[in-house]
């Protein structure tokens, strides 16, 4: 009968993983909607194509080699149990060995599924920052390397617990990946933005910053809601176990804190925008919610709900100034990805020691730095090679006409626009 309890625990934890994974997969749609809402109509088809394709590429590359690099799951998932190779005896034995309060036991396939959707999320961050000017296929080739190698390597050194190259041993705490996923994505994005340069017309020679409004704000709001929802899986699943009272309580607090931080970020960003601009800038509201989510991701379990709200609220304030500052540095990031995922990801990592006694500022900083440096440098190498090989930027004329026609051959809204005259 004890075996039956273990079977149920196994089933419950597997299911929990799968549902959380499905929610994270759903975030791919969130990024796609957010980004397609914030670019101009003429670049919408292309950003959608990138978002769908990058998720597909992440799914395949992580299966081919990424999971092996990160967790040693085998090339082509050869180490993951299939229906044919599954051994109930082994699983039961592991359950008994772990005892009811030990590590969870769940289907290996569910772990892969939960991990692979994170890769998609990391890569989605990049697409927004380089939107409206990067070549589609150069981007997709970058995605192959990023999801197959760059992300898995830094993932291995942190979550994977591997001491690759004997280079360093991080005492680094990052629950669901403020640094490992979000800041990593932002580092690749930053490198891409530097290699690409700004969109034509974004910054004038006399130093003026031009606004380039997004074409479809309801999509941006929808994307934010999707991400908000998907984040419950992102953070909630990262508890890695549900079957047990203490972990279940932890999962519940993660859900609650995740929601609270997003709410705090949304409100504070909206208020700051209203004070600064005298208008309730919706894009800041949306970025504020995401900033709160990114910040709480490094430690969504330990803070009290009030603390989580405050952490989110601070991130909401930071993100507004980060967006303004980065724009002033003439780093053209159409969706604010570097501010949201990079700056607030770093903030999230550094704030962990306040609520988690085991974490140290030194460890957090070292870890964040390692991730940033690794991803930024390797990304730069890849961008550089791509630039040499095939070029990474569409021509000026294509940019004027829109990436949609140049790259995808079809407009996103053929009946709604007729040149976008203002």
């Amino acid at each position, binding site marked *: 009968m004890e075996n039956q309890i273990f079977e149920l625990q196994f089933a419950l934890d597997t299911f929990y993983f799968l549902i959380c994974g499905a929610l994270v997969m759903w975030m791919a749609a969130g990024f796609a909607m957010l980004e397609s809402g914030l670019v101009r109509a003429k670049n919408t088809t292309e950003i959608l194509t990138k978002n769908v394709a990058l998720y597909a590429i992440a799914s395949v590359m992580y299966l081919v080699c990424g999971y092996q690099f990160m967790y040693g799951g085998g090339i082509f998932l050869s180490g993951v149990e299939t229906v044919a190779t599954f051994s109930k005896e082994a699983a039961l034995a592991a359950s008994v060995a772990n005892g009811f309060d030990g590590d969870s036991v769940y289907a290996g396939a569910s772990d892969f599924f939960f991990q692979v959707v994170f890769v998609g999320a990391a890569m989605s961050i990049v697409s927004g920052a380089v939107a409206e000017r990067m070549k589609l296929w150069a981007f997709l080739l970058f995605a192959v390397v990023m999801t197959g190698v760059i992300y898995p390597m830094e993932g291995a050194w942190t979550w994977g617990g591997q001491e690759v190259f004997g280079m360093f041993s991080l005492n680094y705490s990052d629950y669901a990946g403020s640094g490992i996923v979000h800041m990593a994505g932002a580092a690749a994005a930053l490198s891409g933005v530097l290699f690409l340069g700004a969109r034509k017309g974004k910054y004038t020679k006399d130093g003026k910053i031009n*606004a380039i409004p997004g074409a479809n704000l309801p999509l941006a709001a929808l994307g934010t809601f999707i991400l908000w929802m998907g984040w419950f899986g992102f953070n909630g699943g990262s508890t890695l176990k549900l079957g047990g009272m203490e972990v279940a309580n932890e999962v519940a607090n993660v859900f609650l804190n995740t929601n609270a931080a997003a709410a705090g970020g949304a409100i504070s960003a909206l208020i700051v925008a209203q004070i600064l601009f005298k208008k309730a*800038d919706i894009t800041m509201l949306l970025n504020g919610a995401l900033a709160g989510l990114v910040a709480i991701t490094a430690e969504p379990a330990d803070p009290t709900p009030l603390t989580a709200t405050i952490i989110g609220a601070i991130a909401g304030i930071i993100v507004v100034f980060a967006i303004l500052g980065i724009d002033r540095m003439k780093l053209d990031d159409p969706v604010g990805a570097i501010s949201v995922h990079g700056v607030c990801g770093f903030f999230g990592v550094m704030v962990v020691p306040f609520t988690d006694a085991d974490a140290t500022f030194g460890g957090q900083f070292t870890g964040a730095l390692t991730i940033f440096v690794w991803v930024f440098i390797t990304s730069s190498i890849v961008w550089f090679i791509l630039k040499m090989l095939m070029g990474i930027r569409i021509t000026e004329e294509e940019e004027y006409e829109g990436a949609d026609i140049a790259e995808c051959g079809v407009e996103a809204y053929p009946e709604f626009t007729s040149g976008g005259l203002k």
Partner: protein
Amino acid sequence: MKLIKAIIKPSRIDEVKEALNEFGISGMTIFEVKGYGRQKGHHELYRGAEYQIDFVPKVMLEIAVNDDSVADCMKVISEAAKTGKIGDGKVFVLDVAEAIRIRTGEIGTDALS
């Protein structure tokens, strides 16, 4: 025959249409345009960057009328379109050398609806 081109505020289109109808004008062609003049546009704001929309939405009416009606027609439009505030718009009159109704081939003022 003359072509009256009237640039008016979008909010007055219904009034103008009705006034013209009463006056006996039953055909016209309209389209949306953007106006630039004394009436200034507005500021918008996007992610902290303010920008100026210089052009104000207006509606252009093009109405072909016979020479006798031009003056009255201008008056009808002006009165119906007037709000008294800056940006009420203009009416221009151009000469029409020839007109034809495609369906019937009627020419001249017969071509007007």
